[in-house]
């Protein structure tokens, strides 16, 4: 008997995979990253595999690279694995064909995830694994944490014998991220499943100069076909080998698996066939229905490839008349999804051969795409659909049906009775609404462990996060019971509902999941006597109607009082145990305290003490509310978006914002992924309780605050004083403090409901009161009392005339504040170091910019629904934004340029042709217009507008053609934006190619020096000595100098900037890069939460990075060469502080000093030397005269 433990699926799989391999080649991708991270962590900790040695873990530059390394390692004889998902798996496909073709034993563990189509999705489905069907890999599916753990071993045992490589897949998030109590395999059991003779045979097949051969030859038509057929015996044998491995596993461990497993009535007539976590739901449903006498069953497919007709038939009762095959994937245009087609083919052949008396009726359906919940009610709906309403077993379902959505376009969806449930009463169900920052999820994970490990019950935890990086909401679904929890779907009726943020009540229906007679716990600033009157009407009604026991606590106050800040997790966890009765109260408190010691012990005694104090301070403040017999509130929740919002926002965005996105019908979602810009303006997230307040009397109107604001919530305008007529009383303004603007006023307006309270603006503000200590021109204040008046002020501010771009001085930071940001209110982290650059791009060039955005943080805060932060200006223009992939962004953006150049050429030639009709002067003015300065652009816009009016009057094909491309006559600004993971690693090949293209594109690298979006994995931008995931003991090599590599081309404009150190240099670089008629690249230092800093001081860290010489500011402008000057300019002075003074403010560096002080000191010394050497190198370059630089590579620029 193994140890009973509680883990998520990723950990359970990695636990096995790590132990049965010698090499892991890894690359991060959600939701599989955890497996790779654990492998890296375990090697750092010295955890050994079953052969007593330490596996080698190597991060690669992409999944393509990882697959290549896996292939090489396998060919060299090592037991090798990798972990991936989605696009990552797709990048591995070429190598998968090779690895399978060469009959090489290996297992790839895949947390199956949607492949991006019109949209990216990180969630679970089988489209990725289905895309590998043709590769020749065997495919084993698992559907729960226990199954994933066990199947990882069965796959490894089978591949060694079969020599056919395996994909072992399990559902992303639903299984990979679900915490569940299960039995851990002993190392001895793992050992017993792996046959060392087969391992040695694997080694013996390796390339070896001691007995050389060649593998990987190229064939001609004469033999290739035959080689493909030569592998057949291996594939024929594989199902039997898998069965044998499963039987051996059963003998050793006791758990039974089969390639196809049947569950249900022995005489079933209606059967479901499916794989993955949905199968577990189907099994539980079938058990319940069969117990009631229904003739239903389910076939769980475990071995999907090679597909064994024989084993399917063995599993499937002969009585079955109707089958619904459920695929968790979509194959547009196919006669059915893959599993359906395979089942049909198998049954048809069986019927044709006479192995079955008749061919059952088979339909295929889709469910659960992108982690859409698949519930017992849905499984039942499908089974019900297999019989007609008259009860006969003829099929009522149409082939290609869907379950779980409302398809009002193709009418594929089937109705579901949402009230159906199979959950036993013995299971406790609890749902918690919290914020990411308040620690709710962490506390719940902890509770799961307490209940499972200390109370010896079975537990399950599943956590749903919204897509914002700041102020993100989390919903935790916890189940506890005496039996293993087999319910891989969200809780629908909870006996305990906790709302950890009072503000949520006004936004969404928190009590929708509360079961009658259940408990409601609310973190409330109002005490038990007054809280009820502060609840929205519908909340009051639900409490009364459902007869909920209602408890309140001011957890925020308890947490603040004991010094835990916003972390209410311990307080509310204590409340949960105190009220829920899951454990006896005293025992629960004891367990919580033990668990606090375990969790926080290494974080220091003080942290432990504070959490103890939180536990002790909780019970006295927890109070039950006496619920009145009738509701007292007059109003309910306010509408989530304003009445004046566009129809799309009201019908599509609003339901997503309130957690009702599942109810949006197919007809309302765009079929091609096209969404309106600028919908973030309708989501007033009210993330922060504190916001900046302007002191107009102290302000010097420098624009520094709005320059650094990551969320574009600081807006400036100057206007004639007459425009102030009718201003609200609280509306602030000051005389413009520059010469030449008599009677002009200046206003700095804060969009307080969009502000995240990061305080970067406060730190950037240089204006200090000469009389009031600590007071600046911007100061933080409590928001509550400001919201009402600021709403009015913002409304008035928005009616003020927008400053004319042609008259704004683009050349200095002060001027930029008057340019409308066309990137606003994103879901980026509070204090984000990337978004100020993105916003600047949108201000300077947004109305004519196209943005190609690499997958990563910037594509997520830039394009993750519900809302879109890329916006439009008052004239309806704005950045046209798209995200293709992670690896191809440079190429994607280059494509923008190619099309733009082509259409510009077309427009120019058509214009020349039409010159007699539209006027020669207008034609010449347009064709020869300078378009560098904004005033020139504006003038060109007017000319093009005039041209359009003339063209509209012409009735000719040429005129109509010209109209279709005429906007290209205004110079387009093409931007290729992404992070360092893209630019330095996975997209580097493409980036390099684009740099070499000479085309007029602008590349902005938001360099956080780490893979931020996937949780801080090391990239080639990660600095020497810094700790990151995949570099747990500190990075041992210097970061890549991408600036110098780009400079080496000679004709590329290159800038290295850090806004916090020198905003003017940043601005100059952006403008020069954009104006440069060739390829430009800007490397922008972006502070990040993954650095382990107080984000309020992010810009100061940037300044220190430059002051230490770590991040020299530079510009390389090939245009300077044309006038005989040195194109290389070093914009920052010699280092004035040691590297340590910058680096050790950041946990990524300082943590190593704490864990491995001597190594850290050594790495710091190396890094310091590298900084000095790099600066010298730059200084030497800057000191040369122009003749030392190439002049022979003119840019292939715009005309």
């Amino acid at each position, binding site marked *: 008997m193994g140890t009973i433990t509680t883990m998520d699926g990723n950990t359970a799989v990695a636990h096995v995979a790590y132990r049965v391999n010698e090499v892991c080649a890894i690359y991060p991708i*959600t*939701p599989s*990253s955890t497996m790779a*991270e654990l492998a*890296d*962590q375990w090697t*750092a900790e010295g955890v050994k595999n079953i052969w007593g040695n330490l596996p080698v873990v190597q991060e690669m530059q992409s999944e393509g690279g990882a697959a290549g390394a896996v292939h090489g390692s396998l060919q060299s004889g090592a037991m090798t694995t990798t972990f991936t998902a989605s696009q990552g798996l797709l990048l591995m496909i070429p190598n998968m064909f090779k690895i399978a073709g060469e009959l090489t034993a290996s297992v790839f563990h895949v947390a199956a995830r949607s492949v991006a189509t019109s949209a990216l999705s*990180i969630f679970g489905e089988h489209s990725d694994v289905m895309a590998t069907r043709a590769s020749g890999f065997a495919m084993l599916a698992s559907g729960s944490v226990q199954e994933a753990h066990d199947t990882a071993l069965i796959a490894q045992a089978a591949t060694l014998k079969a020599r056919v490589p395996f994909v072992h897949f399990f559902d992303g*998030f639903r299984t990979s*991220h679900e915490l569940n109590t299960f039995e851990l395999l002993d190392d001895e059991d793992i050992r017993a499943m792996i046959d060392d003779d087969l391992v040695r045979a694997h080694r013996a097949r390796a390339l070896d100069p001691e007995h050389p051969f060649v593998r990987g030859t190229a064939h001609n038509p004469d033999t290739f076909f035959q080689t493909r057929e030569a592998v057949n015996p291996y594939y024929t044998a594989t199902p039997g080998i898998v069965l044998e491995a499963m039987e051996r596993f059963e003998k050793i461990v006791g758990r039974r698996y089969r390639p196809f497993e049947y569950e249900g009535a022995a005489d079933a007539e209606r059967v479901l066939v499916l794989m993955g976590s949905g199968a577990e739901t189907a099994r539980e449903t079938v058990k319940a229905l069969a117990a009631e006498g229904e003739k239903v069953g389910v076939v769980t497919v475990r071995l999907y490839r090679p597909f064994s007709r024989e084993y399917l038939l063995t599993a499937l009762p002969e009585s079955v008349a109707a089958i619904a095959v459920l695929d968790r994937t979509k194959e547009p245009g196919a006669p059915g999804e893959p599993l359906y087609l395979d089942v049909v083919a198998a049954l048809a052949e069986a019927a044709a051969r006479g192995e079955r008396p008749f061919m059952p009726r088979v339909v295929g359906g889709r469910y659960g795409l992108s982690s859409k919940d698949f519930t017992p009610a849905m499984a039942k709906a499908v089974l019900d659909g297999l019989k007609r309403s008259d009860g006969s077993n003829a099929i009522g379902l149409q082939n290609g049906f869907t379950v779980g959505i409302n398809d009002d376009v193709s009418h594929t969806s089937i109705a579901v009775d949402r009230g159906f449930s199979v959950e036993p009463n013995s299971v406790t169900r609890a749902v918690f609404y919290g*914020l*990411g*920052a308040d*620690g709710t*999820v*962490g506390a719940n*994970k902890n509770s799961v462990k307490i209940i499972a490990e200390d109370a010896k019950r079975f537990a399950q935890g599943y956590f749903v*996060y919204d*897509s*914002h*990086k700041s102020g*993100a909401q*989390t919903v935790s679904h916890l189940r506890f019971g005496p039996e293993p929890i087999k319910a891989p779907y969200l809780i629908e009726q909870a006996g305990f509902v906790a709302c950890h943020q009072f503000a949520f009540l006004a936004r969404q229906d928190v009590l929708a999941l509360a079961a009658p007679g259940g408990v409601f716990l609310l973190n409330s600033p109002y005490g038990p006597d007054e809280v009820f009157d502060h609840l929205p009407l519908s909340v009051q009604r639900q409490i009364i109607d459902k007869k909920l026991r209602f408890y309140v606590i001011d957890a925020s106050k308890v947490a603040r009082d004991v*010094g835990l*800040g916003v*972390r209410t997790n311990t307080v509310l966890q204590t409340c949960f145990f105190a009220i829920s009765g899951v454990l006896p109260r005293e025992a629960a408190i004891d367990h919580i305290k033990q668990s606090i010691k375990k969790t*926080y012990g*290494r*974080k*220091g*005694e*003080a*942290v432990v003490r*504070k959490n103890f104090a939180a536990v002790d301070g909780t019970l006295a403040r927890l109070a039950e509310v006496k619920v009145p017999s009738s509701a007292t509130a007059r109003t309910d929740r306010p509408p989530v978006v304003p009445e004046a919002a566009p129809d799309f926002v009201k019908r599509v965005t609003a339901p997503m914002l309130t957690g009702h996105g599942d109810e949006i019908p197919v007809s309302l979602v765009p079929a091609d992924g096209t969404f309106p810009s600028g919908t973030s303006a309708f989501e007033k997230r009210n993330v922060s309780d504190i916001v900046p307040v302007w002191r107009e009397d102290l302000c010097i109107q420098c624009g520094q605050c709005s320059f650094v604001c990551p969320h574009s919530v600081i807006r400036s305008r100057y206007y004639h004083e007459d425009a102030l007529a009718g201003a609200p009383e609280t509306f602030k303004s000051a005389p413009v403090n520059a010469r030449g603007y008599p009677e002009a006023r200046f206003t700095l307006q804060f969009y307080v409901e969009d502000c995240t309270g990061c305080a970067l603006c406060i730190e950037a503000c240089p204006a*200090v009161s*000469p*009389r*009031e*200590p600590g007071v600046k021109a911007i100061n933080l204040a409590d928001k509550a009392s400001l919201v009402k008046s600021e709403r009015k002020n913002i409304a008035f501010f928005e009616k003020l005339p927008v400053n004319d771009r042609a008259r704004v001085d683009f050349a200095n930071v002060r001027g930029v504040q008057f340019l409308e940001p066309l990137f606003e209110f994103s879901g980026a982290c509070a204090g984000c170091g990337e978004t100020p650059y993105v916003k600047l791009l949108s201000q300077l060039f947004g109305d004519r910019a196209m943005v190609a955005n690499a997958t990563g943080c910037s594509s997520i805060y830039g394009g993750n629904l519900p809302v879109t932060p890329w916006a439009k200006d008052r004239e309806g223009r704005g950045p046209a934004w798209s995200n293709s992939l992670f690896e191809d962004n440079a190429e994607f953006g280059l494509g923008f340029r190619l099309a733009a150049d082509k259409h510009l050429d077309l427009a120019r030639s058509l214009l020349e042709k039409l010159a007699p009709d539209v006027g020669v002067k207008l034609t010449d003015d347009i064709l020869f217009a300078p378009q560098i300065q904004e005033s020139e652009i504006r003038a060109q816009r007017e000319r093009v507008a005039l041209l359009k009016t003339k063209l509209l009057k012409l009735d000719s094909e040429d005129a109509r053609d010209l109209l279709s491309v005429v906007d290209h006559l205004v110079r387009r600004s093409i931007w290729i934006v992404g992070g360092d993971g893209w630019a330095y690693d996975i997209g580097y090949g493409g980036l390099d190619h684009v740099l070499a293209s000479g085309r007029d594109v602008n590349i902005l690298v938001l360099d956080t020096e780490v893979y*931020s*979006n*996937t*949780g*801080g994995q090391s990239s080639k931008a990660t600095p020497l000595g810094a*700790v990151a*995931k995949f570099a*747990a003991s500190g990075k041992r090599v210097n970061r890549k100098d991408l600036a110098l590599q780009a400079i080496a081309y000679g004709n590329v404009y290159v800038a290295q900037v850090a806004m916090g150190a020198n905003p003017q240099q940043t601005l100059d670089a952006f403008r020069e890069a954009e104006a440069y008629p060739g390829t430009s690249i800007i490397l922008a230092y972006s502070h990040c*939460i*993954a650095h*382990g*800093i*107080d984000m309020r001081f992010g810009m100061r860290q940037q300044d220190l990075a430059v002051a230490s010489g770590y991040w020299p500011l530079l510009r390389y402008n090939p245009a300077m060469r044309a006038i005989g000057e040195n194109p290389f300019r070093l914009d920052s002075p010699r280092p004035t502080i040691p590297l340590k003074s910058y680096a050790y403010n950041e*946990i*990524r560096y*300082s*943590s*190593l000093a*704490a*864990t491995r*002080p001597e190594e850290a000191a050594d790495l710091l010394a190396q890094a310091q030397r590298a900084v000095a050497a790099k600066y010298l190198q730059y200084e030497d370059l800057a000191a040369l005269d122009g003749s030392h630089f190439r002049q022979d590579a003119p840019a292939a620029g715009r005309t």
Partner: protein
Amino acid sequence: MDLSTRYMGLQLTNPLVASASPLNTDIGNVRRLEDAGAAAIVLPSLFEEQIAEEAARQEHLTSVVEESFAEALSYFPESAEYRVGPEQYLDLVARAGEAVDIPVIGSLNGTTSEGWISYARLIEEAGAKGLELNIYFIPADIAMSGREVEKRYIEIVKAVRATVKIPVAVKLSPYFSSIGHMAKAVEKAGANALVLFNRFYQPDLDLAMLKVLPDLKLSSPDEIRLPLLWLAVLSGRMKASLAATTGVATADEVLKYLLAGADVVMSTSALLRHGVGYMATLLSGLEAWLEVREFRSIDEVRGLMSQQRVENPQAFERANYIRILQGYETTHA
């Protein structure tokens, strides 16, 4: 010449001790100090408050961003969530102890009684030969009486004394109404030595930015007067050893302190200014003076000019102060 002396029960080869300083966090410096003649080394203080604050900061920075976003449930490898505790300091104590033959004395600044006791024990276990209690307490709460402040000191000393076996020194504040009485009370509570005096952080104000400027200036020789006075008063009246600290710039100050009654003289500022090798200069200066005057041992000079032994003991009392002022008027008016 016999330069040896005893301090808090430790036999030292000479009376020069490197006092708590950031220099002493480097094992290389610790070795160099021994080579330059330091007879003992006091390591910089382990600050309980700093550990707590750093722990809270680490916890905040790492945890507040965790479990918020589906793709990134954390941002650091688990092993990087570093132990924010006294480990680093204890490691320093152990390594310094192994690196040199001279006694290495730990120093502790606690904030809670648990902290004082537990950290004192840990420092002892790490191998420190003695422990200096850096009771750095500014009673900013103006409701707190002098008696309460004194009680706090005494309780700490008693608690630590009851916890560790190694000798304990107490770095005293000069701001007691009766230094002598306090010194005796601390001695009675179990202190093996007194260090005179602790210099408290006294912030400056920035007139341009209207900010409080937290900086600490190195001590200068004219600051030796206060400790000199009280060493002279206490010398010969205490069982506990006496250490002088503050303002040692040259051997002159070392000698003055010894003459006033110090068993050892500590230096930080001079070493920070001139480097750890300056300890050798201080030592040779001391030897030279003693040789010229044909003293054969430190014992001969220690306390030679203490209040009990000087010709006019009143010179150390307040009456003398009035006379000095009068003299000042006479000379300068």
